[in-house]
Structures are given as structure tokens and as C-alpha cells.
């Protein structure tokens, strides 16, 4: 007989908790069927267990927040901890060394045959920029190009040809610079990753109303502005819950408060989600943020060009804050880059890529610039992101040179591509922007938001900007959901975006 029933004897509790093997449990059941006293004992114990299991406590309201803090801390550690290297990654240096040795040997053998052909610096740069599916092991320096790199060079030639036919001197210049620009590969990966970490920490800091109020007061603002931001964010959260998770964003079935065109819907959704991130956290809004993130994730595969950049820009923030949708951002980000750098009969043949077409708004280009700076943190190829960023900047410079020195163009340059601007150029852009007061731009809150979020404490003109932003606090909230979300972001800016400032460090170096 079994150990339970044979050696120590079994009791009803053992059967009810299914403690034992299948055979032992069958034996117990047979005993119960055969012995009425056993059956009574089991019935009594069932009642006993039911009573005992009612003894539970309801968690306090703070408990979910405490758990969220632990999860946030754990996620930060996961982001900052170097991943264990796979066998392939461990072997990569060895493979690279062997490849280099083989390349040198081959070059030594074939050099006499190749003396007639000398590569230009531009060709060399093309060869060094990895193609769409390249891996470190395939990136061989030198003149021997594999099939992928040859295809990439052909694509580069097609892009160059197309740009040569267009009146787009700054775009062409940006393209050549992007090809030849040698950047620190470590920084290309590390800086975006740090930016994501800072975004997350910033969001966590903003969860505390005390921190928000302290930051507002430090900038000479009113604590009441925070109350307004929180009210706006609550309204946006409620509206986000109305947006269904499923459904095709393109078919117009859900066009109500979120706009009537695809772009309006995507923009409204993206700005609403970003406004929730910008306003800080609460339990109800955390659920809305996840809901909005899930909706963005559901529609992202349907989007291209500008709409994809705007949706992904918001989704990266959600990922940085919640850790959700990492793989989707990586995949869609790589697709966005490929859409720009793929050269075929249509793309770069009959027309420019969607993201660089003249239909794309300046604000959309700004969002794309910011997004492309972050994508390497998600594993998207950093040199290719850098090249596309250069192209986006070239497009904005062309718009500016064509006499369109509009505030949205300048705001987009500062907001999404400020780090690529040369020293003198940045000063000129800032100087040009002084012609517009934020309150006069006010109905266009998307541009105001880009201007506001482009500047950080310690930068020249930051204090003046804060003074202008203060005046926005008395404006009536716009009626459209998109403008309302952008407005919420504008007001949130006073305490967002710079952790050093929030954590009590030195604030203004110059003003």
C-alpha cells in the first residue's frame, strides 16, 4: 500500500489537498467509498477548508504602488545590466580577427591585379556602412565587398542619382555627410540607452506631486499649474479608455474624438499617451497608459512614414516607462529605417521615401529625428539610424532655405535634431525663434510643445522660455483632443525632461 495510507495513515486533508501520487489518491478514494466514517470525515474537512480559506486580507491602496516601484527598480537594473554574451557574441571577436587576417592575405594575393582601381573616400564610406541585414561578422573593412555590401553600394548610387536630379542641396549634403560621418560606436549605443533610462527615472520622479511642485516653484511657476496638468491628464486617460484596443485605424471605423484622418488619429493617440507620461503617474492613469500603449502597438504595423514615426515616438516612451512592446519597437523601428534606405524602382526611383516626401510636416520630421536618436537603444542599427537622421535634418534645412523659416521648422530642428546642429547654426535657429512669442503660437500647441521640450535647464534662453510658458497656464484648454494633449505636454514641460534639475542639482548656469 502507499506510504501515506500504509505507514503513517492518511487523513481527509491529504485527499482534499491531493497530497500524494495518483495511485495513492485513488486508494484514498476507494477507502472513502468503502467506509462511511471516512466519508463523514472528508465532508467535515471540506467544510473546514472552505471556512479557513475565507481568511484573507485586502491589500492597502499603497500596495500596488509599492509593487510598481519594485518592478520599476528591477526594470532599471535589467536595462542597465549588460546582457550575458551569447556564444556567437563571444566568438565574434575571434571571427573578426580571423576575417581580418584572411582579408589581408587575400588582398596581398590579389593586390597586383587591383592596382589599377583605387577607391574614393566616399566609396569606402559606403562600404563601411552596413547594409540592411548586416552583422558585425560581415562588416569587413577593405576593398573586398560581399553581396550585401555591393547591393548597399548600388542603393547608395541610386539615392545619390535621385538627389542629384532634385533641387535639394542640403539633403544631398546631409546624405554625403551621413555616409562619411565616423561616430563613436559605443556612444551610438550607450547614449540612446541612457536617454531611455533618464526618461524612465524622470517619469518615476514625476509620480510624486511634491517633486512636481518643488520643480514648478524652483522655476518661478505656480503649483496650481500642476493641478491643471493632472486634471487634463485625467481627462485624456478617460478618453484613451474609449479608444478600442482592436480594429483597423485606417478603415475609419473608430473615427470620433480621435480625429477623422489616419494622421489625426495617430497623432491624437500618440500625444495623449505622451501627455500621460509627461504628467506623471497615478494608478488609474497607469492603466490608461498601458491601454494607450497597447492600442498604439496594435496600429503600428499598419503605419508608414510620418505616421509610423509619430506612433513609434510615443510607443518608445511607453516602453521606457513600462517595459512593454520592446520587440515591436525594435521591429517597427528597423522597418522605418529600411523604408528610407531601401532603393528600388519606386523608392528613390519614382519618388522619395515616405518620410522624406514634401507632404511630411515639419513636426513629423522633428518627431522622427527624436525617435531615430533613441532607436539604437532598442537594437536598431545605429549607423543606419544616424544616416536617416542626417537625411531628416537635410530635409528641414532645405525647407528653411526655401524661405520657410517658419516656427514649426525651427522647432523641429531643435526638438528632434538639436544635437546634430552645428554650433553657429544652433545659435541662429534660437535667434530666429525669438521672433515668435509662445502665446502667439498658442493655437498650434504641437509646435509649442516641441519648442518647450527642446530646451533644458542650464541652456541659454531657458529662463526666458519658462517665463513664456508660464503665460500659457492661463489659456483656456483647447477643444480638440490632440491640441488638448499637446497643451497638457506644454504645461508639463516646466518640470519635466531634466533629472539633474529635479533632483536638486545646480539649475541655471546661464540665462
Amino acid at each position, binding site marked *: 500500500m502507499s506510504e*501515506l495510507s500504509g*505507514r*503513517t495513515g492518511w*487523513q481527509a*486533508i*491529504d*485527499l*482534499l*489537498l*491531493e*497530497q500524494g501520487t495518483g495511485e495513492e489518491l485513488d486508494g484514498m*478514494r476507494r477507502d*472513502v*467509498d468503502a467506509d462511511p466514517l471516512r*466519508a463523514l470525515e*472528508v*465532508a*467535515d*474537512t*471540506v467544510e*473546514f*477548508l*472552505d*471556512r*479557513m*480559506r*475565507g*481568511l*484573507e*486580507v485586502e*491589500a*492597502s491602496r*499603497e*500596495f500596488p504602488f*509599492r*509593487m510598481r516601484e*519594485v*518592478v520599476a*527598480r*528591477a*526594470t532599471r*537594473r*535589467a*536595462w542597465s*545590466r549588460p*546582457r*550575458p554574451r551569447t556564444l556567437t557574441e563571444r566568438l565574434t571577436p575571434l571571427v573578426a580577427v580571423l576575417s581580418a587576417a584572411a582579408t589581408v592575405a587575400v588582398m596581398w594575393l590579389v593586390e597586383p591585379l587591383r592596382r589599377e582601381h583605387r577607391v574614393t573616400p566616399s566609396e569606402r564610406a559606403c562600404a563601411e556602412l552596413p547594409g540592411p541585414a548586416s552583422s558585425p561578422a560581415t562588416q569587413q573593412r577593405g576593398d573586398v565587398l560581399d553581396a550585401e555590401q555591393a547591393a548597399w553600394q548600388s542603393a547608395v548610387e541610386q539615392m545619390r542619382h535621385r538627389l542629384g536630379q532634385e533641387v535639394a542641396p542640403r539633403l544631398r549634403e546631409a546624405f554625403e555627410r551621413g555616409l562619411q560621418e565616423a561616430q563613436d560606436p559605443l556612444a551610438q549605443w550607450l547614449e540612446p540607452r541612457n536617454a531611455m533610462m533618464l526618461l524612465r527615472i524622470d517619469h518615476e520622479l514625476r509620480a510624486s506631486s511634491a517633486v512636481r511642485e518643488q520643480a514648478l516653484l524652483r522655476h518661478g511657476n505656480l503649483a496650481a499649474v500642476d493641478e491643471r496638468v493632472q486634471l487634463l491628464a485625467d481627462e485624456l486617460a478617460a478618453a484613451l479608455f474609449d479608444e478600442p484596443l482592436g480594429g483597423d485605424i485606417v478603415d475609419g471605423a473608430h473615427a470620433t474624438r480621435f480625429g477623422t484622418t489616419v494622421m489625426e488619429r495617430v497623432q491624437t493617440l500618440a500625444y495623449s499617451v505622451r501627455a500621460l507620461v509627461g504628467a506623471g503617474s497615478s494608478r488609474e492613469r497607469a492603466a490608461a497608459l498601458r491601454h494607450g500603449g497597447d492600442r498604439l502597438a496594435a496600429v503600428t504595423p499598419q503605419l508608414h512614414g510620418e505616421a509610423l514615426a509619430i506612433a513609434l515616438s510615443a510607443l518608445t516612451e511607453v516602453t521606457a516607462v513600462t*517595459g*512593454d512592446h*520592446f520587440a515591436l519597437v525594435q521591429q517597427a523601428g528597423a522597418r522605418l529605417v529600411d523604408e528610407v534606405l531601401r532603393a528600388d524602382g519606386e523608392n528613390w526611383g519614382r519618388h522619395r521615401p515616405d518620410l522624406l516626401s514634401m507632404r511630411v510636416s515639419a513636426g513629423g520630421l522633428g518627431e522622427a529625428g527624436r525617435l531615430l536618436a533613441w532607436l539604437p537603444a532598442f537594437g536598431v542599427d545605429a549607423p543606419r539610424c544616424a544616416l536617416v537622421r542626417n537625411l531628416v535634418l537635410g530635409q528641414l534645412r532645405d525647407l528653411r532655405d526655401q524661405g520657410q523659416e517658419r516656427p514649426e521648422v525651427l522647432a523641429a530642428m531643435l526638438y528632434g535634431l538639436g544635437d546634430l546642429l552645428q554650433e553657429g547654426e544652433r545659435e541662429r535657429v534660437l535667434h530666429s525663434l525669438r521672433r515668435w512669442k509662445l502665446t502667439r503660437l498658442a493655437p498650434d500647441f504641437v509646435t509649442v510643445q516641441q519648442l518647450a521640450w527642446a530646451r533644458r535647464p542650464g541652456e541659454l534662453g531657458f529662463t526666458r522660455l519658462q517665463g513664456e510658458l508660464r503665460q500659457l497656464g492661463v489659456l483656456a484648454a483647447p477643444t480638440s483632443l490632440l491640441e488638448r494633449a499637446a497643451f497638457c505636454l506644454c504645461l508639463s514641460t516646466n518640470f519635466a525632461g531634466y533629472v539633474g534639475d529635479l533632483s536638486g542639482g545646480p539649475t541655471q548656469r546661464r540665462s
Partner: protein
Amino acid sequence: MNKQAKTPASAAPTGAGEPDLLAAYRDGDPTAFRKLVDQYRERLLQFFYRLCWDRDRAEDLTQELFIKLMLGSKRYQPEGRMTTFVYRVATNLWIDHYRAQKPRPRLLSFDQVLHPDDDAPRTREYAGDAPSPADQLAESEEKAAMRRALERLTEPHRLVFELAVYQERPYAEISELLDIPIGTVKSRMHNAVAALKQLLATADEERGRRAGGAG
């Protein structure tokens, strides 16, 4: 006759075929730890609560447990099931806490089921469990009786009962967790159930007498 007690609302992690979330987190998956917390936080809160009868302290202990898991994940080498590991850390945390807080210098036999010195409900000095008026209103008389009955069990018996009944751990796993023979687990469980049934029956009789007296 083979009717069995219903399982609690939140089913216990079975361990069979479960993804090892701690290993995934150790290997760099940033979402794994959130899944781990979502999966275990409610059960562990109840685990600690039924051991200390203090919600705030139970929440503190739950938070401390997850922090321990997070910090220790780097050295985590899965030898068995992750669930067993989580409960081992939880049990050790409770034992450490109990030892640090326990004020009574009495010596009790491990085979002793009940605290010997009282018929009246015993107060636990360390738990800060004086029920507030709101708690008194909210807590039904029956629940109070069950709580008193559980409190009268000695710590080793209560721990076995908690792990087996509320956390639905197999006896073999409890034996491994507490580092005691499986026979001891069974005998503690059987004794605990017998003692609790008796205590509840006495409480029911007393309530019945009071109700009869009042009527």
C-alpha cells in the same frame, strides 16, 4: 463522496512547465520581473498576513521579498522549480523576521501543536495587531474565531498549515522548504487540522451558547 474543497480564487502557481521568470530576468528580460510580481504578489501578501496578522507588516515583507529576489537574481542558479525557490526565500524571510521579533522566551516542543498557556485569545506582542474599531466591525465573528484558532497553533504547525492549505504546496516541497522529513510535515499537518477543528468547534459552541443566552 469524493467532493473536494474548492481551490482559492487565485490558483497557486503549479510549477509544472512554468517559465522560469527569475532566470529570464537574470538573463536580461526587463519584463520578466513584472510578470513574476504579478504572479506572486497577492499570494505572498496573504502568506505573510496569515503569519503575522498585520497588513502593513505583510506588505513590507512582500516588498522586501521581491527586492531580495531582484538583488539575488544575479546569483540565481535554478536547481529545482522557481516556485519552490520563491517560497523558500519567503519562508526564510518569515523565519528571520519571526526570530528577530519574537519576544517570548518560552521553550516549546516542536511536536507541541498549541501554545499551552491560555484558553483566552493570546495577543501577539510583535504584530501590532490591536484591531481598530473599523477592523472590528469589518471582521466577522467567525473570521475572528478562525484567526484566534490559527494564532494558537505553534509556529512550526502554522507554517506547515499555511504552506499546504493556502499556498497549496505539496508535502514533499514543504519538507524541502523547511528542511524536515516528510513524515514530520504530515504529522504536523494532521495535528494542526485536528487542533483547529477542535478550537473552531469550541468557538462555535460558545457562540451558540451566547446566541441562546441572548435569545
